[in-house]
């Protein structure tokens, strides 16, 4: 059923008793043309764009838990395209453009809220780095504005812009078109859209093995039986290396915990997404009123989706210092998600040495904003067996050649990106 003013009025009149399931709950078939492993944002977007852009619908998305249990439902929901490296710049800008039309395209309100993403800077060196990045963005055709201290204060009065701060604010780099999106809606909207075009979305179906014969994929083993497939697309976010191992892939990826935090809801205090340049802290106020934020990685490899107290204390310190009014705001909940960190901080979307097997992963802590473009370009790769121009740099071979896409310059220490 299409969502429209009239369908809503009609249903309101009948007590909302006639809304259909937003997607079916089919039994897995014996075989599909394409099996997508992982029903997170990227997996669902891939399925949707395979159907929408390439007319391919004999597809199953296999999800080991309930749909959207992974990072798609655990992240800080920030979207932006303020990248330095050109490969990232064009890819994330494509993504942001897709976000801008996504609610209408999906007929599902994902609540893109372009209230701007601001990165503050606190030293002359940081200012210069911000100018470098902002200019790179502008030359990529992306919007960017440099703000001075007064402008930062005006945009986000909650920020302590006083000279007495521990790290006084000197200014900030603003991407006005950045913002946030309602994360669960993204998973559900893509699921509904893919399902409506005939894709089977199968929950509680964990892939436990990948069948390969003479260098070509044949199908997957799952907790709900074997499923044959001509093409298999891995897109499992925090489990890339584990699923990669099933096909003998050795990936330049480490898995780390990143925590996310949310406070009690309060009346609007912060309009813009801000990230604190002097430490690790990025915050957005949700439409519900909670302040949602994250800090740095917890600092060790883990698959446990929960975090430690050091990070908790560190973000609380940043929050109540950067925005002193948050000192008396109460933290409600915090949780962890597993980020697959690559050696250069940029993702991988590629063919693999196994014929018919594709890999998409290594999104570090920035893959939410990538969701539409990741699906779009991955679908292109799967359909045509050729990389999409906007994702052609996201190869595995770059780690051999050295043509890495090192966005922050941290080098081959995944935990530092």
């Amino acid at each position: 059923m299409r969502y429209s003013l009239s369908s809503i009025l009609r249903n309101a009149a009948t007590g909302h008793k006639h809304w259909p399931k937003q997607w079916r709950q089919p039994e897995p078939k014996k075989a599909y043309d394409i099996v997508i492993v992982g029903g997170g944002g990227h997996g669902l977007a891939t399925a949707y764009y395979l159907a929408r852009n390439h007319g391919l619908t004999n597809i199953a998305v296999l999800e080991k838990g309930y749909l959207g249990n992974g990072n798609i439902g655990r992240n800080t929901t920030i979207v932006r395209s303020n990248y330095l490296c050109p490969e990232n710049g064009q890819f994330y800008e494509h993504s942001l453009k897709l976000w801008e039309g996504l609610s209408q395209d999906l007929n599902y309100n994902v609540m893109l809220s372009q209230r701007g993403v601001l990165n503050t800077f606190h030293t002359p060196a940081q200012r210069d780095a911000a100018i470098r990045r902002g200019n790179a963005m502008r030359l990529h055709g992306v919007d960017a504005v440099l703000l001075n201290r007064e402008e930062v204060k005006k945009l986000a009065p909650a920020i302590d812009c006083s000279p007495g701060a521990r790290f006084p604010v000197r200014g900030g780099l603003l991407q006005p078109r950045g913002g946030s999106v309602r994360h669960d809606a993204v998973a559900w909207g893509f699921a509904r859209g893919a399902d409506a075009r005939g894709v089977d979305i199968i929950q509680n179906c964990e892939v436990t093995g990948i069948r390969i014969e003479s260098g070509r994929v044949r199908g997957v083993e799952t907790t709900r039986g074997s499923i044959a497939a001509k093409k298999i697309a891995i897109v499992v976010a925090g489990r890339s290396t584990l699923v990669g191992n099933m096909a003998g892939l050795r990936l330049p990826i480490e898995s780390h915990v990143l925590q996310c935090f949310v406070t009690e809801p309060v009346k609007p205090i912060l309009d813009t997404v801000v990230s604190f340049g002097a430490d690790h802290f990025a915050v957005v106020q949700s439409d519900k009123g909670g302040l949602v934020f994250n800090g740095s990685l917890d600092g060790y490899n883990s698959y446990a989706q929960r975090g430690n107290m050091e990070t908790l204390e560190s973000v609380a310190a940043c929050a109540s210092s950067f925005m002193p009014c948050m000192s008396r705001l109460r933290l409600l909940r915090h949780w962890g998600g597993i980020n697959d960190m690559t050696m250069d901080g940029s993702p991988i979307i590629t063919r693999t040495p196994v014929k018919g097997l594709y890999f998409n992963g290594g999104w570090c802590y920035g893959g939410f904003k990538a969701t539409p473009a990741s699906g779009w370009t991955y679908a292109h790769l799967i359909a045509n067996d050729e990389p999409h121009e906007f994702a052609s740099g996201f190869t595995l071979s770059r780690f051999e050649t050295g043509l890495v896409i090192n966005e922050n310059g941290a080098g081959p220490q995944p935990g530092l990106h």
Partner: protein
Amino acid sequence: MTGQSHRLPQGGLIDRAQTLSFTFDGRALSAHPGDTLASALLANGVHLTGRSFKYHRPRGLYSSGPEEPNALVTLGTSGRTEPNIPATMVEVYDGLVARSQNRWPSLKFDALAVNSLLKPFFPAGFYYKTFMWPRSFWCRLYEPMIRRAAGLGALANEPDPDRYKHAHAHCDILVVGAGPAGLMAAREAALAGARVLLADERPAPGGHLSGETIGIDGKPGAAWAGAVADELAAMENVRLLSRTTVYGRYDGMTFGAVERVGDHRAPDSSSPRQRSWTIHSDQLICAAGAIERPLVFAGNDRPGVMLAAAARSYVNRYGVLPGRNVVVFTNNDDAYRTANDLAGAGARVTLVDSRAEGEVAARALLPAGVEAHYGEYVAGTKGRAHLRGVTLASSGRGIACDLLCVSGGWNPTIHLLSHTGRKPVWDEATASFAMTDPGDGAFAAGGAAATFDLGLTLREGATAGRAAARACGCRLSGKADIPKAGQLPAYGVEALWRVPDAMSKAQGSFVDLQNDVTVADLELAEREGFGHAEHAKRYTTLGMATDQGKLGNVNALGILSELRDMPVAQAGTTTFRPLATPVALGAIAGQARGRDLRPVRHTAMYRWHESHDAVFTQAGLWLRPYYYPREGEDFAAAAAREVHAVRSSVGMVDISTLGKIELKGPDAGAFLDRLYINSISKMKLGRTRYGVMLREDGMVFDDGVVARLGEDHFFITVTTAHAAQVMQHMEFCHQVHWPELDVQFCSVSEAWAAIAVAGPNTRDALARCVTGLDLSNEAFPFLAAGEGRIDGAPVRIFRVSFSGELGYEIFAPAGSGAGVWRAIMEAGEPYGITSFGTEAMTVLRVEKGHVAGPELDGRTTAADLGLGRMMARKKDYIGRAMAEREGLVGAGRQQLIGLKPVGKDGALRMGAHLVNELGAVGPDVSQGRVTSAAYSPTCGHFIALGVLRDGRSRIGERLYAVSPLHEEQVEVTVTQGVFVDAQGERMRV
């Protein structure tokens, strides 16, 4: 001041001799010590305390604990404004100021209550289906509207004037909850010799006993609890923390807790408001009790509907009668105590029990005069700002009442047992989710273990205390001494997730009170495919309110299981996450707030800089002099003067922030050979060398000076930014790659102050203060290293130069740094020696073409920076193999070059990009960038270093340096990167 209309003439654990005054929404009211804000409001007849989140429905006090969903208030004023605090947890003090929230213009009349009328259009998840047309309206109209309506209380945009502290505690056994189970557990464990920490969020021990009439060992429950707590307090191995909420459990038996040190008194800054504890324990005993479950029926959210045990606790603990005409609606025996206690306090009570009469043993306990209905439900309520009556389901009878007490059974409080990933399981006997297997090192006792009999609770507490003590190695002796508890009715709960006809009135039957989630919302969620507990939560916002689903979640699971036609045991639960109860961010931050967010690092000469008007800049945690303005000088003028002093006479700069590492051992040279791209082990004694390190991936990591002070003795400097990382890298390499190398090293960054002195007159100036070292060019040539004394202190002197002038770096023990600095200042006085800051330092090194932080940005190779010739061919070193990869050596790399404006007065800025033509946009437009730029007083125009695609072959080319952010474009010429003394003669004189 109004009278306390609902205060009983006697009873309660309050001090009637004293009266306190406080305000609620500006109204002056009175209370007694021992009151919570909730009990005080009830005593004053105030029931309406708040508005719900979505529909702004009037809501009243619902509970007496931290699970309170409705009575959330804003406390305090200006910087002490604190929103969303449950009135049930606030101890009243004289002068307390509280306000209701989420209403406009007033609590009684709230304009947004119209939302309630629009309810048919706003079911769960409605926003996913609407607000999309026209596209631009979401951001401009709908979202701002939603944002304004949402949120609960408001923050004041002012700094918090209070203080917070961090503390660590170590114990063998952490006991959470000082109710009967926790007290018994703590006592047994402590008697066995274990170090016990007992934490409870309430001001006094006793847990629910304080709200009950039941006694232990012939004493009232609270008195018994007080006596046990006194006994524990006298033991050396016990620490009692009251007003302390353990909010989270983390891996490795670490717990977070917050102690409300000062919240129960008028604010004063002499002591911390709250203390944040990190508790490291060996064992956990969770004795956190249980939380009563609401019942779900139409109109179950009116002010005047309250949990049954809460109602009797207001009578017993606070001497307040929350209602005079009372209906008790229950599915279990426990609420009979409420009927009993309220009737005893003079209320007229009617009991409605969903169970069939024959099944209820407790009916014998009802006092005379209580009318009881069995197999009956409350089907609806009347009233608006306050409850006026209820309607019964089968008889259709109306009963007038001003209080409806509900009990749907009890949920064990098991958050701390679940935070590290354990899932509770359904327990049919108690109709609850319980932690039957709490896992290694953890125990549950009492209500938290779904035990609802007091005698059993005491025994279970004792058993857990002993088992935990044994687990951490204590020897037990004798048997536990279990006190005798009064008799309670059997619990006899029969699950009731919603009264049967809640379906027909689903819209008015609330499951999550604060977030306004109704049965209809759950039905819709299930209908649309969101029936899984986790999906329903996200789709309807169930359990995401400030009580985190403590009240509503289990009912919701029950309802969903019915809708999905599966046993509740299979419906699954959502995940418990810390924090068990919300905590102020300031408290978690502790001292690390505001100026104390991170430590400030000062060099030994900091005071001198300060008293000489230095303007400081941040460098990591350090404060460094940026420039030293003199009367009438701005930034540029000061920097130009400082540069000029160095080029023409002598200047000095504090470089103490450099990382410094000292190495000793027969393999020290070999070790450094493997770290630096150039050869180190062949260096002569008493010499220095410029060294470059790569990362594993072949990119430049760091640069600095290596000095050989002895055959087996080296001293290296590393950049300020990478000081810690280089040390880590060296540790890693030694411990993991080459443990066989006989070398010891340690960071001595803090041990040495460092000063760079440079300029043509440097030698003459230094000669006036240095003793024990011949500084003549013959005895101490360029790149020499030696030791001498300045101002009596032993110093290390290296003849190196980043400015291209005759220069020395002087290292003095940190304690002597300030003295040495002053001595050099004095010695240089005849030459007009000038202190300079980091800005002049940048200008000087750019003039000389030296790379620094902006060029070493982690993406440049040694070859890119023109240092390729330093890369030794005959040895291996970290990064060598990877530096030879095609991507790092091929064409198209951005290489270091110099830049100058074509017109003399063009200004260059760092961060500008280099483009071939103006106006183009795209991924390949940027050819490189300006890495470091400065106005050079020496050259008389701007100069810059930059990196440019294939730059070394483009010397002489003209390009544009553009900064679209500033709408600037400057035509530049590509040059060699050295602007001053290209032959390098001046530093060798």
